[in-house]
């Protein structure tokens, strides 16, 4: 089955979402990520969405869920790389990504996580 790779840098897990997400892939990512947070004792999760042209409410909900699960497991989540057109559309759609921190790019996101952990 297709899966989204999770990389580790120190205590931070890196996830780059490049493909269009569908339900099964999203669920697999939630499973894998929560497992890795526990196994790797990660303190932070960085989700890079810079290659997503479209973020709809389904992907938004998945990101919020991941952040909530990570938070319960004592890890911070930062979403980075959102395209400007996606940001405009998300706000109009009414999606607030509650509980999710964002940063402009991977570098700033890493800095944010390193400061928090």
């Amino acid at each position, binding site marked *: 089955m297709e899966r989204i790779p999770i990389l580790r840098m120190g205590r931070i897990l890196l996830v780059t979402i490049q493909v269009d997400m569908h339900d099964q892939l999203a669920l697999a990512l939630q499973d894998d990520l929560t497992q890795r947070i526990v196994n790797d004792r990660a303190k932070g999760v960085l989700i890079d969405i810079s290659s997503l042209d479209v973020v709809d409410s389904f992907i938004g909900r998945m990101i919020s869920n991941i952040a909530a699960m990570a938070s319960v497991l004592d890890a911070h989540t930062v979403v980075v790389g959102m395209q400007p057109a996606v940001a*405009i559309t998300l706000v*109009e*759609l009414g999606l607030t990504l509650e509980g999710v921190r964002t940063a402009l790019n991977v570098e700033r996101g890493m800095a944010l996580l390193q400061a928090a952990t």
Partner: protein
Amino acid sequence: MRLRSAVRERAVAIGMGLVDQTKIITAASELGRNTIQYGGGGVAHASTVVRGQRRGVRLEFVDQGPGIADIAQALTDGFTSGGGLGLGLGGAKRLSDDFDIASQPGQGTRVTITRWKPF
């Protein structure tokens, strides 16, 4: 996913900017998911339309599902009958210029949206 590229193709064809493309594709994604999840599947149709000097992309979603009893309620943000965020229908309406929904219990649902290219 094929729906998204079909919508993008038409938006690009009439020279729509990136933000407007993203909005109409996102609306398509929301409505397409509704058609599958709540309507039990159906037909989506994307076309380019002309009104006077203006050009736009029109999308139509038709399903033969259970229909919607209370359309105003379905359009309310946060209302969902199926465990979603309840943003799909209202969000798609905000992301389009023209929005039309026709539905009756047991009769299926037809949603038509248009986004016009700004001058």
